C-alpha cells in the first residue's frame, strides 16, 4: 500500500514492525539512528515516516524539524513516556500525528492511512471543496454539508472546521488552531476551543467525537472518512 520508513533504536520493535507492516501490504525500510533516518528519507523518499522521539544520536524532534526543511512527507511520532509537552513540541515542529507506546497494529495502521490521506497533493489550501467521508467543506460558498444536508455554522465555527479540514487526518495542536483561526495573539485559550468544538460536534451530529477527534492534552484532528 505504501512505502514506510520506521526510525527507532529498539531493534526488537523494528523487527516486529517490519513483519507487522509487511503483513498489511506496506513496503518497509528501517533506520536505527536519526542520521540514518534522515539519509534514508532523502534517498528513498518514503510515503510515511514512523519516527521514535528517543534516538541515540539525534533528538526525534530535531529529526522532525530537519525533515520539514525539505520534505512534506507525513511523519508519525512514537513516544514512550506519554509526556504531553513532547508530543505537542513534535506536532508544532511539523509532525502529523503521534502514537503512544505500546500500540496495536490497527491503531498504527489507522494513523498511517490518515497521514497518507493528508498528503499535500490531495489537500491544498487552494482547493475549493474538501470532502472527507460524508462531510464536504465548500470554501468558495462558506458552506458545510453532511450527507448532502447543509449545516448552519457561525463564521468562527466554519473557520475552525475549515482549518481542521485543510489538515484532515493531522493532529492540530491547540496553539496551531488558536493562532490560525483566532489570530496570532491567541495560543493558550484552550477553553475557547473546547466550547467551539463542543458546538461543532453537536451541529455535525458527532457527540462522541468520532469525526472531530480529541487528542487529550494536545489538540484536535478531523478524521478522514
Amino acid at each position: 500500500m505504501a512505502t514506510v520508513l520506521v526510525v527507532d533504536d529498539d531493534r526488537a520493535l523494528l523487527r516486529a514492525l517490519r513483519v507487522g507492516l509487511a503483513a498489511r501490504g506496506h513496503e518497509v525500510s528501517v533506520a536505527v539512528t536519526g542520521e540514518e533516518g534522515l539519509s534514508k528519507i532523502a534517498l528513498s523518499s518514503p510515503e510515511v515516516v514512523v519516527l521514535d522521539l528517543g534516538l541515540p544520536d539525534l533528538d526525534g524532534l530535531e529529526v522532525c524539524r530537519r525533515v520539514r526543511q525539505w520534505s512534506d512527507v507525513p511523519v508519525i511520532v512514537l513516544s514512550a513516556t506519554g509526556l504531553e509537552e513532547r508530543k505537542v513540541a513534535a506536532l508544532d515542529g511539523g509532525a502529523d500525528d503521534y502514537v503512544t507506546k505500546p500500540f496495536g497494529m490497527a491503531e498504527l495502521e489507522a494513523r498511517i492511512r490518515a497521514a497518507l490521506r493528508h498528503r499535500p497533493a490531495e489537500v491544498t489550501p487552494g482547493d475549493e471543496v474538501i470532502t472527507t467521508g460524508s462531510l464536504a467543506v465548500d470554501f468558495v460558498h462558506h458552506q458545510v454539508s453532511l450527507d448532502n444536508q447543509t449545516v448552519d455554522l457561525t463564521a468562527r465555527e466554519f473557520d475552525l472546521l475549515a482549518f481542521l479540514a485543510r489538515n484532515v487526518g493531522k493532529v492540530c495542536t491547540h496553539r496551531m488552531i488558536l493562532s490560525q483561526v483566532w489570530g496570532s495573539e491567541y495560543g493558550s485559550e484552550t477553553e475557547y476551543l473546547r466550547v467551539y468544538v463542543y458546538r461543532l460536534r453537536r451541529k455535525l451530529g458527532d457527540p462522541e467525537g468520532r469525526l472531530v477527534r480529541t487528542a487529550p492534552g494536545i489538540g484536535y484532528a478531523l478524521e478522514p472518512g
Partner: protein
Amino acid sequence: MAVHPLTPGTSPSTAPVVDRRASTRRTAVAGSVLAIVLVAVLAAVLVPLRDHLNVATAALVLVVPVVAGVAVGGFAAGIVATVTGFLAYDFLFIPPYSTLSVGAAQNWTALGVYAVVMVVVARVVARLDAARAEAQYRAGSVRRLFDLSELLVRDLAVGELLETIVDAMVPAFALDGAALLLPSEDGLELVASAGRPLDREELDRLSAHSAVPVTIGRTAARQGDVQVLALEASGRAIGLLALRGPAETGSDRDLLGAFSNHLALALERSQLREQAVRARLLEEVDRLRRSLVGAVSHDLRTPLATIKVATSTLLDTGAPVGPQDAAELVGLVDAQADRLERLVSNLLDMTRIQSGALELRRRRVAVADLVDEAIALVSTAPEPAPVAVVMPSHLPDVDVDPVLVRQVLANLVDNAVRHAPESEPVTVSATLRPHGRVEVAVEDRGPGVAADERTTIFEMFNRREAGGRGGLGLAIAKAFVEAHGERIWVEDAPTGGARFCLTLPPANQDATDVVVHAAGRGAP
C-alpha cells in the same frame, strides 16, 4: 563589631538592676562620713590660725567638704555635709568662739550666705551626678539590648536559638526565671526555659484550654510573680514570654518591650525559613518521584510496544503472516517478556539496595561464565546477540554475587547492542588489573557518550527521550557494582563509540597465587 557572650554570670554589662537602690544608700553613708572627716581635718588645721583669718576665708575653705560629700554620696550626703560645715563654722570660726551665738551682724550675713550657697551647691552637684548615673544606666540598657539582639541574628537552629536567648534574658533583666511558650496543636508548648522553671499550675494557667482567663497585650499581664508578654509579629501572636521576677522599673519595661519585639521578629523569621526549607524538600522529593515514574514507565513501555505489535499482527486474520514470520514474532514476544521480567526483578533489587535490605550472596565464579550467561540473557531468540568476547586464558575467579553481576553485564551489553550499528559487533573483554582485580569492558562502535554526560548517564533520573543512552539499566548497573564496593565508568573506546568498564574483586589471595604460580610454571 564585638559580640559579647551572654552566659549567666560572665558579663559585667548585665549586672543586676535591683542592686542600684542598695548601692545608692551605701554611697550616701560614705559621702557623709567623708564630709564629716574633711570638716574635722580642715577645722583642725584652721583653728590655730583663726585670729589671723577673715571670717569669709573659713567659709570658703569649708565649701570643700560639702562638694566632696555630694560628689561621693549624692544630695543626702550633701545635706549632712552642709549641716556639719554650718555647725563647725558657727562654733569654731564665728566669734564668740565655742558658742552657737553669733555676735556681729556681718557674721550673720556670712553664716546665712554659707548655708544658702552650700545647699545650692549640694543640689547642683547631686543633679549632675544623678544625670551621669542615668546616662550610664541608659548606655548599659542599650548594651544589654544590643547583646541580646546579637544573639537573635546568629545562625542557629530554632531550638538552640530559643534556649540561648532565654538563658541570656535571666541575668540581663535580673529575673528569677524565664520561659518561652509557642502555640502548638494542643495549646501552648514550653520550648525553652531558664532559671527557676514554671510549675505545673503556672503552666496550666497560661494554657488556652484552662478555665483561667489570661489577659495579655503590649503591657505585660501579671499573675502572681509571673508576668506574661505576648510576642507579636505581622499582627499575629506567635508566642508567649513568661518571666518570673520582681516588678521592674519603667525603663526596664520599655527595654523588655523592645527586646520582645526583636524576639518575635526573629522567631517569625526562623519559622518562615524552616517552612521554606521544608517546601523545597517536598518539591525535590516530588520531582524525583515523578522522574522515577517517568523512567519506569518508559522502560516498561518499550518492550510492551514490541509485544503489542507482534501479538496484534498475529491476531489479525485480515493480514495473515507466513510461518517463518509468525515464528519470528513469537520469538520477539518471548524475548521481550524476558526483558520485562528482568526489568521488574531489577527494580525489586534496586528497592532492596536502597532500603539496605539487599544481601550480597557472594560466590567464587569464573568471569567467562558470567559473560556468557549475560549475553544469553539479552539474546533475542533465535539468533544470539552480536557480541564478540575477548578473554585471556588465565583469569582469576572473582568473588561476587553472580546474579547481580550477570544482570549488570546484561544491562551493559543490551545498552551497547541497542546503540551500535547493526553490522558492527559489540565486544566484551576482560583484563587482569593490580591486586588481582578483573576489569570487564563492554565496547561498541555507536555514537559514544559526550564527556559532560559520563556521570549523569548512570543517574536514574536523567532525561529520557532526548536521545540519550541512559535508562534504568545503567542506574541499576551502577547500584549493583557499588554494592560490591567496586567501580563502574564510561570512556571513549579506541575504535570510537563507548566503552563501559567495571572492576570485580578477586575470589581470594589464593586465586591470584594460583595464577602467578601457573604463569611461573610456564616460564623456563
